[in-house]
């Protein structure tokens, strides 16, 4: 038989590369053992392919598959959800590698690579994923091409290039589908909760936590103000409010219902839209103090914290209204008073004693607050990102020995002393400040702007914000972290402060990210219709989408067919030959049909003989044709003459 035998493992390297690239997208989230196992299997399989080692027997592969599935199940307690699903899929790819021997097996590997890539997009849809998506798709497609339809001599580069070209051709329709495909509001099935360690605030604060967080320059959220942005001193972004204190750490309350307190507000409102980066928690950061929020997407807790009914796992945006001048709470319900006066027994005795002494010294709560702030200001307290480690009676050590601390130390110590002095107090965590991005026109708040302050109850003023850090390091509030710290402390973005070019580059990049988040990541059914309206469709509905989809498919198909038709076109015949063909088409009407082996000149002679009325014209056509075709110097004029003669030919 002459059937060419193809190497069934052709494209193995490509499939392996595609799988590797797709798995690399999950390197930070997959357990290390999965990655290592995959690398080991991949390397072994690659060697086995080169050296012709036998593959492991069926029972061994089955055992490995079952064990891997069980371990994943044990680790995640589920196979549903992105993380567990990814781990499972990656392991199955590994097992599949062990039995890969045909083109079909390789195809399965490529499909798994596509799906792993998809899972990577589900896990994280930041702008930085886009190059990854494109490269991954190009590699997987190239692998598929190599397995299925390449020719033996194709180099990897060529195949990769061809798959990139195919993807490029696919891009216009992909964009149309993205814009026009009807978006159904999900979810259709339960989304397993993700347990990830994203940087961000938590519902617990131990001295040292916030300073760790501020080491990250990641974006926390972006804010677009309708009017002017408030001055830096008013940019307190309220996050989790912490009530429970165990002598060392502060926590949110759990499992206890408190009455809601009323808020009165006055002065000018601040309207803004806040776009949160996903943090997997339920809180929504809001400028002190939020009074209006989208009803279905958020609610305000008893301690004025805005919360979302669901964890924020995707970029989320909220339109809010806050009033910087407010009176929070007219009377203090007993349950809240008790909660915010609670002190742990037998911890931090000196701090408690300090509070009691202050209470004995001053009658007015305001005076107690002032006295404590004066102590921070006048005694040698220092503001630093690298505070010394503290032991059991942490606040005693801080207040009376080390006296070096970050915002959480001051907030924590202050709140504790206030409680000891009989003033209801709590710790508020959140962000303070932010940086205006002139390119995007929004306020950018980073994790490094994380902050903690205190809130005390004063009978005729309600809950009052007190920021003890401002007493120690007023620059922190006015100029941000970098301005408040010594030059030798490592702070993210110091380079940014020193180089204008770098600053500009970073702000531009952030504006791009913001655009990506706003336009692409948060694209949904509502925005789809908005876009259609802006494109000129009046009152778009599902039918508009369907028609648009059909129209873009039709346009795409026609354009692609035309392009491919042009690409596969036959080379244009030369003009003399075309004109001769045209002449013979005309002469056919007179019954002069060119013979299969008849030359053009012989044909014209025969035609002239059988149509005497055309003989003169045909003789001239023959002469010009011969001159064009065989003459030493064919001229443009000859060609024009031939055109004219052929067009004039009347049969």
């Amino acid at each position, binding site marked *: 038989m002459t059937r060419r035998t193809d190497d069934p493992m052709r494209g193995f390297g490509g499939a392996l590369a595609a799988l590797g690239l797709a798995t690399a997208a999950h390197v930070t989230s997959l357990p290390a053992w999965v990655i290592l196992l995959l690398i080991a299997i991949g390397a072994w399989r690659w060697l086995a392919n080169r050296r012709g080692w036998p593959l492991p027997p069926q029972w061994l592969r089955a055992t490995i598959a079952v064990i891997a599935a069980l371990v994943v199940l044990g680790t995640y307690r589920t196979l549903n959800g992105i993380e567990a699903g990814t781990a499972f899929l990656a392991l199955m790819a590994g097992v599949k590698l062990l039995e890969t021997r045909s083109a079909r097996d390789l195809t399965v590997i490529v499909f798994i690579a596509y799906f792993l890539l998809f899972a990577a997009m*589900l896990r994280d849809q930041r702008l930085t994923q886009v190059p990854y998506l494109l490269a991954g798709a190009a590699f997987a497609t190239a692998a598929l091409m190599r397995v299925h339809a390449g020719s033996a001599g194709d180099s990897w580069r060529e195949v990769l290039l061809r798959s990139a070209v195919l993807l490029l051709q*696919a891009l216009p329709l992909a964009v149309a589908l993205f814009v026009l495909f009807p978006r159904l509001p999900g979810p259709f099935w339960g989304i397993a909760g993700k347990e990830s360690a994203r940087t961000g605030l938590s519902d617990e604060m131990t001295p040292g936590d916030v300073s760790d967080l501020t080491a990250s320059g990641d974006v926390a959220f972006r804010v677009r103000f309708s009017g002017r942005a408030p001055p830096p001193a008013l940019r307190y972004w309220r996050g989790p409010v912490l009530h429970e204190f165990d002598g060392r750490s502060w926590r949110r309350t759990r499992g206890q219902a408190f009455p809601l307190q009323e808020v009165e507000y006055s002065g000018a409102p601040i309207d803004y839209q806040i776009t949160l980066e996903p943090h997997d928690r339920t809180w929504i950061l809001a400028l002190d103090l939020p009074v209006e929020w989208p009803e279905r997407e958020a609610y305000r807790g008893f301690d004025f914290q805005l919360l979302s009914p669901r964890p924020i796992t995707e970029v989320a945006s909220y339109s809010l209204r806050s009033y910087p001048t407010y009176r929070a709470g007219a009377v203090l319900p007993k349950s809240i008073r008790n909660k915010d006066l609670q002190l742990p027994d037998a911890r931090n005795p000196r701090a408690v004693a300090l509070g009691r002494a202050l209470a004995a010294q001053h009658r007015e709560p305001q005076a107690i607050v002032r006295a404590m702030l004066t102590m921070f200001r006048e005694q040698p307290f220092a503001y630093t990102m690298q505070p010394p480690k503290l032991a059991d009676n942490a606040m005693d050590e801080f207040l009376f020995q080390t006296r070096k601390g970050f915002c959480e130390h001051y907030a924590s110590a202050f709140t504790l002393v206030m409680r000891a002095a009989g003033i209801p107090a709590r710790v508020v965590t959140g962000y303070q400040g932010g940086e205006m991005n002139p390119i995007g026109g929004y306020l950018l708040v980073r994790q490094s702007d994380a902050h903690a302050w205190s809130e005390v109850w004063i009978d005729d003023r309600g809950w009052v914000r007190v920021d003890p850090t401002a007493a120690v390091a007023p620059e922190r509030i006015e100029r941000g972290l970098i301005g408040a710290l010594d030059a030798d402390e490592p702070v993210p973005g110091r380079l940014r402060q020193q180089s204008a070019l770098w600053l500009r580059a970073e702000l531009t990049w952030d504006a791009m990210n913001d655009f990506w988040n706003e336009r692409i990541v948060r694209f949904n059914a509502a925005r789809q219709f908005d876009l259609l309206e802006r494109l000129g469709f009046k009152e778009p509905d599902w039918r508009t989408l369907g028609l648009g989809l059909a129209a873009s498919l039709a346009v795409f198909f026609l354009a692609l067919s035309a392009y491919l038709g042009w690409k596969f076109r*036959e080379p244009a015949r030369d003009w003399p030959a075309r004109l001769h063909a045209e002449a013979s088409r005309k002469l056919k009407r007179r019954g002069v049909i060119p013979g299969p082996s008849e030359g053009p000149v012989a044909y014209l002679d025969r035609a002239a003989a059988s149509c005497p009325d055309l003989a003169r014209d045909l003789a001239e056509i023959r002469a010009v044709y011969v001159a064009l075709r065989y003459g030493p110097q064919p001229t443009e004029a000859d060609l024009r003459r031939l055109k004219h003669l052929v067009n004039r030919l009347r049969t």
Partner: protein
Amino acid sequence: MQHPIRRLRSLLDARVQAWIKRRQGIDPDPLLLHRRRIYILPTRLGFAYAAMLFGMVLGGMNYNNNLGLGLAFLLVSLGLVTMHHCHGTLSGLGLRLLATESAFVGEPVQFRLLLENRAQVPRPRIELSADDVVQEVVDVPRDGSAPARLQVVAPRRGRIPLPRLVVATRHPLGLFRAWAVVHPEYSAIAWPRPAPRGLPPHGVETDTGGAQDRAQGDEDFAGLKPYQPGDSLRRIAWKAYARGQGLHTKQYAGTDVVSHVFDWDALPGLDTEPRLAQLCRWVLDAHEHGEAFGLRLPGIVIEPNIGTAHRQRCLTALALFEPGRTHDSAH
């Protein structure tokens, strides 16, 4: 007993094939595959791909994840793009019969084809199949051609037509298969299978007087003729060559050359096919021994001669012999 579904499928398939044949008719040679005669359907891989994409779109909607949806839509679009590429790879491909090679019954006759591509892009992975068996996978270069060879085991003697020829491709990703059904008028000749050796040839005649001009023997030297490739080296006139007269072959007039005439009528009592098989055997043996032979069939007489072309002629006569028609002509 066939499975009912399979039977239904084959019935349907036969209907479709008949429809295609009615629609297209017999194809000329050379043939240019027009785009209107190219059919295209997703392969099993294509359906798997579609299922994967369906899952991706569903997952993207479920997680409300636009980047995931973006990937899914890109791959959907990619699939549709490859559909066009697959179709384009076949559309405009030229097909031409180069030659056929005869064979004995039971052995494969060969059809040598040329795939021609006048486009400036290559047409890779063209599958050629006869009777639903893929026989060749050919890459046709841009503005060039590639040979292909199809073979059909001859079930009987006579003209063996090339059965339903399918030209297909899965280029570039294997998600779609485009194919064209070709009904060419190509046929190759299958010779009768020779009978086993044993029966000595009848009708040995000694040809005297060189009645056949072109039958050459070994006995009487009759002169020189210019050498032609294929002449026996033993008959080259080396002496003449040494004299510088160039290469010549010695010609002999056969006076007592052994020359056979294999006669249909010398084998009475045998059916048509065994008779042809026996005649075939004698032809082959005589050719092998370098003996001259002729053939006498009802209505056909081939004068004794030698050489490969003569052998071919005799075998073809045996292959195409139709007893019914010769009976008619005999009457």
